[in-house]
């Protein structure tokens, strides 16, 4: 028996166990991997390929050239990102205080608040969007009430434009931000805040130096979900935007109708995917640097 073998008496056995474990884990993920490959990787790859096929069926860049020629495409992408970023920011501004408030309540009251968050979440998206239309339109509930109360003399335009679109989208996206954020905040050990106070930190300072950094993972997860969902949003901007807010998903659908080829539509999807990838990559760099700075 060599010295090495004496120091690690059962190394070979351990290695075998580890290898078995890896195999088991791989086996467990296999159904999911197969599903993702069959349902996402292959179709997305196929659409990517189709975006390089012209109308006559040969290899061509015409689907991309079209986007360069018409200014409408650039404007549509800018609108898409503008609306998505604004929705995400407003969601954070409303959702963070709410999630914080809920995390400070007792379990019972927090659960009651949670029902308030979840009920709209369970209601059909279409129903909620049309409900906003009824509330916000020129002779809608909100304008009528404001006029009767003498707050305004002429109805204000709060729907069929960017404002209406943002109101509807924030309402629909809010639960996607609150749910991960609240779960994260609940898990934060309250003793850390007490420790900060006992060391002389004011409540404000304790919040910003202890609580806020600890809640960042939940916040970032929520922001990411909201932002990515917004990019592909169709129904709400189509109804509440009144044709004045055209997002990428709407142009994708109208291109299918206009050119009758998947390629003309999927090229837009490819551009959206690539630009989103770049933005998220840059964002992840910025955030990780930010976190390093905090430490």
């Amino acid at each position, binding site marked *: 028996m060599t010295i090495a073998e004496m120091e690690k008496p059962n190394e070979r056995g351990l290695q075998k166990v580890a290898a078995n474990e890896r195999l088991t884990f791989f086996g467990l993920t296999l159904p999911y991997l197969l599903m993702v490959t069959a349902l996402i990787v292959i179709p997305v790859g196929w659409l990517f390929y189709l975006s390089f096929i012209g109308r006559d069926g040969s290899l061509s860049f015409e689907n991309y050239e*079209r986007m360069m020629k*018409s*200014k*409408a495409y650039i*404007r*549509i992408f800018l*609108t898409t990102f503008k609306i998505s970023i604004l929705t995400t920011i407003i969601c954070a501004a409303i959702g963070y205080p709410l999630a914080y408030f809920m995390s400070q309540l007792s379990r019972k009251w927090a659960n009651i608040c949670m029902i308030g968050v979840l009920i709209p979440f369970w209601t059909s998206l279409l129903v909620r969007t049309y409900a906003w239309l009824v509330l916000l*339109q*020129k*002779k*809608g509930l909100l304008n009528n009430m404001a006029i009767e109360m003498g707050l305004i003399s002429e109805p204000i*335009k709060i729907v*069929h434009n960017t404002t209406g679109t943002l109101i509807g989208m924030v309402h629909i996206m809010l639960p996607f931000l609150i749910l991960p954020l609240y779960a994260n905040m609940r898990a934060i050990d309250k003793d850390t805040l007490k420790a900060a106070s006992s060391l002389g930190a004011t409540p404000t300072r304790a919040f910003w130096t202890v609580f806020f950094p600890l809640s960042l993972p939940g916040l970032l997860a929520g922001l990411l979900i909201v932002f990515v969902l917004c990019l592909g949003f169709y129904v709400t901007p*189509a109804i509440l935007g*009144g*044709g*004045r807010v*055209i997002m990428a998903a709407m*142009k994708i659908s*109208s291109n*299918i*109708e*206009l*050119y*009758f080829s998947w390629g003309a539509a999927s090229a837009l999807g490819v551009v959206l995917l690539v630009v989103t990838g770049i933005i998220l990559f840059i964002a992840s760099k910025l955030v990780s640097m930010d976190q390093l700075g905090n430490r």
Partner: protein
Amino acid sequence: MKINILKSAIGCLTATGFLFSATASYAEDTLRIVSWGGAYQKGQSLGIFQPAAKAMGITVKEDTYGGISDVKLMVKSGADKFDIFSSGAGSCASGAAEGVLEKLDYSVIDVSNHLPGMYSDYCAGADIFSVVAAYNTDTYGEGKGPKTWADFYDVEKFPGTRAMRSKVDAQLETALLADGVPMDQVYKVLDSEEGIERALNKIRTIKPHIAVWWSSGAQHAQLMKDGEVDMTTGWNGRFDVAKEDGAKVAYDWQSGIMDWEGYGIPKGAKNKDLAMKYIAEMMKPEYMAEFAKYITYGPTNKKVYELGLMTDERAKMMPSHPDNAKHQLTLSTEWYSKWRTIAAEMYTEMMTE
């Protein structure tokens, strides 16, 4: 609680049952037809689809669809969802150009009594409708609103918010007519990118007053009902139905742009022969007259008038009535098959500016 679970379980089962029946029903005596929903399809269903099916002793299942692009995608991907579709003449022509439609057999389908031009090789005309300028009678007063397209574009004489279609179809024509182009010259002027640009520039002059770009007939009817806009382009029948429901809406035939709708068969339809016979049945004047009771879209079969199947009062409400038709431009399907794609991209560019 238990009952609830049982109920929802039954609900689920019946729902799956429907799904299966929808995908696997090529029974010999069953046809699947798709149309546009809303007040329009309600009229078709009650006036034409179901009575015609009953007369032939077959079952006709109805659904809605998104237009000719659905037909193209369905045929190209080899799917099989419906046997007959209801479509505008222009869209049908573009489907025919892509080779996704069955040629109609006019030895089976009798169109000998059709108005001239109201059928094509791939589309059997069923009703005639008009795109008109509708206005809110509360805002302007009955009969005092915009009568012509020139009025629609005149924001000084007729201040107020407007709505136009988010797609190019039948919109550029309004701009040129407002710009003083004579009816018979409209499609000649539009026959170049400069001509299209001229129309777009006219629309640009009223763009700050366009509050909504509508995307469906149900939507523009609702916009007028709710008083969301003071005037809009749109289909005459939808406004008449809205008016019957109490909406403060009126229009003048001087602003009409006439177009027609018909039935087509997707290439490779399972029940092609039966579909052909069914279209032949639907072309009979009785059905067209019955349909026109529900919505003011005129018959393509002139027998309806000759046999006196429609009251004079009702006939005068139809876009195709001679008194109304004489004011109107007829939509050119040839122009749309040549220019629609280019014009649509230019229109979107104008919208997003």
